[in-house]
């Protein structure tokens, strides 16, 4: 099997501590295992904290108050109604939630919303519109690089980053750097063809 973890942006530990949620998150994971096994529950007292953050989302300045437990993905989908970013696993395994944070591809399901404070977030909705497609979106249409389309927003966001990172030099390199985005319909060869087509336009 290929390496499933291309170099996504590392979680900022300082951001975690600043958000004040690291302890709660860890306790919850332990408690889950115990409940599933039917043993005593040792979870901490409920701690709901809501904190104000500012984000630049698809070029718009937004001021929000978010639950410190919320992931960026859930804030996008539940609070901002930007449902283009998809939840396929919530564990950073499938890549369907990929967005750009300050231009770097990032798994929004592994990013707490508070970590995005002050950053520029680009989602599939901000990349292009039906009347004004980004070259990568056009290339996905031209090459039928999807079937059901559910992984497609993440594939497209990764495809753009794959090129801007300089990781689209050959078919083999594209395959490697697109392997963090699973496609169960298995459009992989068409995705590679789409990235190559868009590479010509983005670099040309």
């Amino acid at each position, binding site marked *: 099997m290929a390496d499933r973890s291309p170099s996504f942006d590392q979680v900022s530990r300082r951001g975690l501590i600043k958000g004040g949620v690291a302890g709660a998150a860890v306790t919850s994971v332990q408690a889950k295992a115990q*409940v599933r096994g*039917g043993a005593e529950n040792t979870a901490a007292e409920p701690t709901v904290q809501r904190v104000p953050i500012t984000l630049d989302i698809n070029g718009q300045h937004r001021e929000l108050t978010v*639950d410190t437990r*919320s992931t960026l993905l859930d804030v996008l989908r539940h609070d901002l109604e930007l449902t283009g970013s998809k939840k396929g696993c919530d564990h950073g395994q499938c890549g369907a939630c990929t967005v750009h944070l300050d231009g770097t591809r990032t798994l929004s399901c592994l990013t707490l919303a508070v970590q995005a404070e002050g950053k520029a977030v680009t989602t599939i909705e901000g990349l292009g519109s039906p009347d004004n497609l980004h070259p990568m979106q056009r290339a996905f*249409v031209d*090459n039928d690089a999807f079937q059901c*389309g559910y992984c497609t927003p993440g594939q497209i966001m990764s495809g753009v980053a794959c090129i801007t990172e300089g990781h689209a030099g050959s078919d083999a390199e594209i395959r490697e750097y697109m392997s963090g985005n699973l496609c169960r319909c298995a459009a*992989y060869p068409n995705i590679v*063809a789409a990235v190559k087509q868009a590479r010509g336009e983005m670099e040309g």
Partner: protein
Amino acid sequence: MAQDYTPVPAAKENMGQPIARYEALQKVTGAKIYADDLPVPGRPAYAWMVTSGIAKGRITSIDDSAALAVPGVQMVMTHENRPPLGDAKTFSSGGLAITELAPLAGPEVHHDGQPVALIVADTFEAAREASFKLKIAYTEDTPTATFGSPGATQKNLKEVNPSFEPIRFNDAGAALAGSAHTIDSEYYTPIQHHNAIELFSTTAYWDGPRLVLHEPSQFVWGLKNAAAEQLQTDSETVRIKSPFVGGAFGSKAAMTHRTALAAMASKQLGRPVKLVAMRDQGFTHSGHRQETRQRVRLGCDASGKLTGYDHTQWEFTARTTPYSNGGLEKTAAMYDFKAVKSDNYVVQGDRNVPTFMRSPAEVPTVYALEAAMNELAAEAGIDPVEFRKMNDTRVDPVKGVPYTSRSLNQCLDAAAERFGWSRRNPQPRSMRQGEWLIGWGCSMAMYPTQMSPSTARVTLKRNGTASIEVAAHDVGTGCYTIAAQAAGERLGIDPTRISVQMGDSRLPPGPVSGGSISTASVTSAVANACDRLNERLGLPADATADQRRAAIAAMSMPELDATGSWFPAELDQKAVDALYEGGVRIVGGSTDKRAMYAFGAEMVEVRINERTREVRVPRIVGAFAAGHIMNPRTAHSQYLGGLIWGIGSALHESTEIDHKRARYTNDNIAEYLIPVNADIGEVDIIMVPEVDDEINVLGVKGIGELANVGTPAAITDAIWHATGIRIRDLPVRIEKLL
């Protein structure tokens, strides 16, 4: 990838145009077209399903005080306080429920991951946090995990499915005894999970007595009727919305527990409720491909002509609902066998109920048949491609009915030419490059052409546009696109000027999107509606484009609509009527009139590192013949996905189970391995022209479940050719090649 790889092939003989997908722009811009993305009236509450941590036993107490104390939590529903529910029939009883077990039916636990509580809160975060704080105590019994586990019980399939008949065609034992060459092999196929990227979600809200469900579904009319039955309400008050489905592969056909859970919670709270089963919960929520054991005895005479074929299958299934795929009547139809015997057993344990998964019966049974064909060809010293060609048949030998069309030999020739098969040295371990051992293998692919009744409404507008309404489904297959193409052809209108609505139970009923039946069934109903419109316009079937334009412009009304319907030759109008009740009638494969199948041939090269035993598939060629191809773009993508599924089946996919506790141990999409982009090399697809005027209105055969059948046999034979090692236990991972 080869330099000449063409993602979107041009149309050849007997093909429609490769137009872009109807919804392509929506899919690349993140439009709200999936059930979980659709807006709801008001802010929804979020539900978290709590699932059992044991596979067998009984809940002795539930303490929900800490869960209810989490700020924002609105309710905790368990078997102790849930509202009454009606029965829901399973698929084999004419219903749609995945299991005979009702949601939160009682304290008994029948399998790992059984939903035992539902927590609903103002936010997703609060519901999840509360789930960690719900205290459930169990008494645990020893569960039966899989084949060979204590407590496993075996039954003849006939005991649980009275319509099943074991095959006794001539005397297979005698035929085998008199054969020049025979093989006798046992094969194992693993548990597999669909793992569509879209999770299982249901959003429910009520408007007085009316219930709206946003749920990704392969059968909205079936779900509407099944949900109404379980919730004890009138089906006319239930509406299912599922405009597009984010991958299904069989997992979104049945009704699971979450539908009623979300509906009940929404009713109690008086607000929309969103329930999403998490990825790990998905492994026990909506079925899987069950593990099988297969024993095949196969013989041929000295010239290589097949003689006897004896195939027994054991399927591992649930104690609560003994779901089975069967399928040996289909493998028995594949070659010119002189005698066939087959038997099928189910073995039951404490597991969740299996369900359809892409080519449900065909993946395991054709793998076993085709692996046996390769082994026997080697035993007889005959090239495996030649061996298949010399045993071709024009009739199903057991039923004695003719194939409506069968192009297996043309597929074998086309694939062999493209692959360069004639250069194959039959000796194992005869090819290498550095430390890489190289092997070539082949297999047949087949899938029965299945069809179902369908209706469709087509509206023609004086401005020269049209619209199609049918409650069919697009799971990534291109159904909207090909429906527009079918109508466009019939009405003389550019398909891009035709709007399409699907995936809503308010539309005229279409078939379940399963068994690769949609294209044949839906296009036939659309064509029928178009024919009615043409008749009302006074247009002959061979009208010119100018005549059509003139007739449409001269319409007295701004719009003219017609509802068409269609049923396969084996059924009658009653089957159309049953659609309105959510009933399913599927006809296909070998009937008492005819044998209907699509065929393909697959050839594959594997490379195995002699030191590490890593297996790579640098290239695969698939040649397929499936009647009229509506759209070579979407067809190519389905074949592509199928071949890659085949590679995954052979080398990657397997759900592992804890034999003591009967729980899945790799219930996530990182440890349940599926192919990633870097696993896939050259994929070469050939669409072999085939005309079948007899099979249905447009002469189409379903293709969505064709290409992933047989691939594992081609790959295991290539592994044998490279290494001399026969692996009969899928998937083939490094440890099996040491």
